[in-house]
């Protein structure tokens, strides 16, 4: 019993099945003005969008790499192809999607989920969205759900007003990169007082090696409207680094509600440098539910900007880092108006030398009197070689607030393992059960299929193949 269980490099089964790198067009590696112009031309974009791209490229060249977080030295931009067009256009029927690509999404359960529990689906493969659908009755109510390229063409005024406005292109180096080479992503517009009772889901799959995915998600939930949006991402594993630098901009207008659920399951050669922000209006609410599993390095700090009086946000997130992974995540909230509130519930699990850092920001401005913020972070380390850190930054400019921060770092309990083993569970079963229990407050917030997927991921991570 004393001998430590050896959990080998995991078999991520369905996620690791690679398709042939069978693109229609793959842009030369690296980043230059020519490359940016060529992407824009391929997309037949209006001038104003090319202008944004070129400004962003300029910003990219000026901005420094962040030095305060994980080591990014393995990321070499001149080894990354920023645009890979799959061998198909946007389809509205799965029958029209090429066999190999459709099989990939079948394995990930997307068409199945679409039939059962979704109001609309978007599926991106490498740089372009290959499938998009939305229920007829939602179209009648004025809901728009389409890929970003279509939005640029058909709703230029809305896009101009919101694109890279919530997240400015100078925010950090990878936002600038994103804005220069963005491709794909989803656009959602929910008109006033329209409430969707079943979710929309976009899935992003990166198949091509030595490439990047830069999808842009723009969601506008108008006054009194309500939406649940689900985002899923995955990629098979390659030996060389892949890059994901998506950007998510969310506008939640007065009295509106948005729930944004994510399961990120990138392969362990992925640099995931993603940016997500929401601007929240009066008495509106955004809830984030996030599970971050894969990637070699993640730097991901969703932010809620509570600009309207009485705005609310909740963040429920879990991060799981195994061997060779450095996941630097956290939630940021800006309280910018009176009586706003935020609740943060973050969990992290690290094993086999993996590192999880919870890097948080809470800013409560002078104006935000009567606001409330409560933060709880819990970390579970499965062995002595793994790491877990909490780095909170709290910047509170008024006394009239209720603020609480609670951080707990713990090891998996030997007593609990023994209890479960005494009931016939193997050590791996017992650990997986305890970890699932630890993750439960997050998984219960996820859509059912994703909760199941998350538990499977935990099982895969912990049960592995034992030598």
């Amino acid at each position: 019993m004393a001998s430590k269980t050896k959990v080998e490099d995991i078999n991520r089964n369905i996620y690791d099945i690679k398709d042939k790198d069978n693109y229609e067009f793959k842009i030369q590696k690296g980043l230059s003005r020519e490359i940016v112009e060529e992407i824009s031309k391929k997309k037949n974009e209006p001038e104003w969008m090319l202008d944004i791209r070129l400004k962003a490229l300029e910003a990219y060249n000026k901005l420094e790499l962040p030095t305060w977080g994980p080591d990014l030295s393995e990321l070499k931009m001149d080894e990354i192809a920023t645009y890979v067009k799959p061998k198909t256009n946007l389809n509205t029927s799965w029958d029209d999607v090429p066999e190999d690509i459709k099989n990939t999404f079948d394995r990930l359960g997307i068409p199945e989920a679409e039939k059962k529990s979704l109001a609309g689906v978007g599926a991106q493969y490498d740089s372009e969205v290959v499938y998009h659908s939305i229920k007829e009755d939602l179209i009648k109510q004025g809901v728009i759900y389409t890929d970003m390229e279509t939005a640029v063409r058909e709703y230029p005024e809305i896009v101009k007003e919101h694109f890279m406005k919530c997240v400015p292109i100078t925010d950090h180096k990878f936002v600038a990169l994103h804005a220069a080479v963005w491709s794909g992503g989803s656009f959602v517009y929910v008109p006033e007082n329209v409430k969707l009772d079943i979710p929309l889901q976009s899935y992003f799959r990166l198949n091509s090696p030595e490439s990047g995915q830069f999808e842009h998600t723009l969601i506008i939930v108008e006054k009194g409207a309500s939406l649940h949006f689900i985002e899923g991402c995955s990629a098979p594993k390659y030996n060389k680094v892949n890059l994901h630098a998506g950007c998510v901009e969310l506008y939640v207008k007065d009295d509106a509600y948005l729930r944004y659920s994510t399961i990120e399951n990138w392969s362990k050669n992925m640099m995931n440098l993603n940016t997500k922000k929401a601007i929240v209006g009066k008495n509106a609410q955004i809830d984030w539910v996030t599970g971050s599993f894969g990637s070699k390095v993640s730097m991901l700090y969703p932010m809620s900007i509570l600009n309207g009086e009485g705005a609310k946000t909740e963040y429920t997130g879990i991060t799981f880092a195994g061997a060779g992974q450095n996941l630097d995540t956290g939630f940021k909230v800006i309280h910018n108006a009176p009586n706003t509130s935020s609740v943060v519930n973050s969990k992290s699990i690290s094993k086999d030398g993996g590192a999880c850092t919870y890097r948080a920001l809470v800013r409560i401005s002078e104006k935000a009197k009567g606001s409330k913020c409560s933060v709880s972070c819990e970390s579970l380390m499965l062995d002595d070689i793994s790491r877990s850190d909490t780095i909170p930054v709290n910047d509170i400019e008024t006394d009239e607030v209720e603020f609480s921060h609670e951080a707990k770092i713990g090891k998996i309990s030997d007593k609990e393992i023994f209890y479960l083993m005494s009931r016939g569970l193997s050590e791996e079963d017992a650990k997986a059960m305890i970890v699932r229990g630890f993750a439960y407050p997050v998984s219960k917030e996820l859509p059912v299929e994703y909760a199941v997927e998350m538990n499977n991921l935990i099982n895969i991570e912990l049960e592995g193949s034992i030598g």
Partner: protein
Amino acid sequence: MDKLLEIKDLHVSAQNKEILKGLNLSINRGEVHVIMGPNGAGKSTLANVILNNPQYTKISGKIRFEGENINELKTNEIAKKGIFMSFQSPEEIPGISTLNFLKYAKNKVSDEPVKSFKFRYLLKKYIDELNMNPKLIERNLNVGFSGGEKKKNEILQMLVLEPKLAILDETDSGLDVDAIRTVSKGINMYKNDTNAVLIITHNNKILENLDVDYVHILVDGKIVKTGKRELADEIEKNGYEKYKKVEEE
């Protein structure tokens, strides 16, 4: 006699402190054994060591179950051989309902897949007999259960898992009089000619309705006296003073 458990000259330590100091114990099928002893004597240690809790180190001695040396087996393998322990303080495990856990564990210790219909029927019967709130098994395993509810849940697990040997570590502690009677009832429901029970207790109450075969007094890591039922009554009256003195001589 049909020997189930046999422990010979067992020495056990934890954190370099010797706790069990040459313990012998033999249990046959069909028997009910009781272990009593002062706080810190090593009773829970004994139960833990039988199930090979890695917190304890066996220095020497043998533990055999159905004639097989189980010293080196992992806890779950020992559970599968048919040894069960009711914990002095059961752990709380969030994220799995008690019901699903019972099914899961039953499948782990069984050789054949568990029949759903029979499982449900028996479970309902046990819950009734143990006067448990049927809603309780829908809640996460032991999470937020009262002390008494946790103990009854241990007995429920014993009934469901049907071990050959059940070790009950102070299952009666902290229970009200009615609950103690319910636990004895549970033990009687479980007990038959082919299995055995080892009851660790400080209290005679639980023994009232049980057919006790042997009472052992465990002091300072050894069994210093074995007797019949009356020994428990004597301890109740006079305490352990006499046996501790014997030790010091």
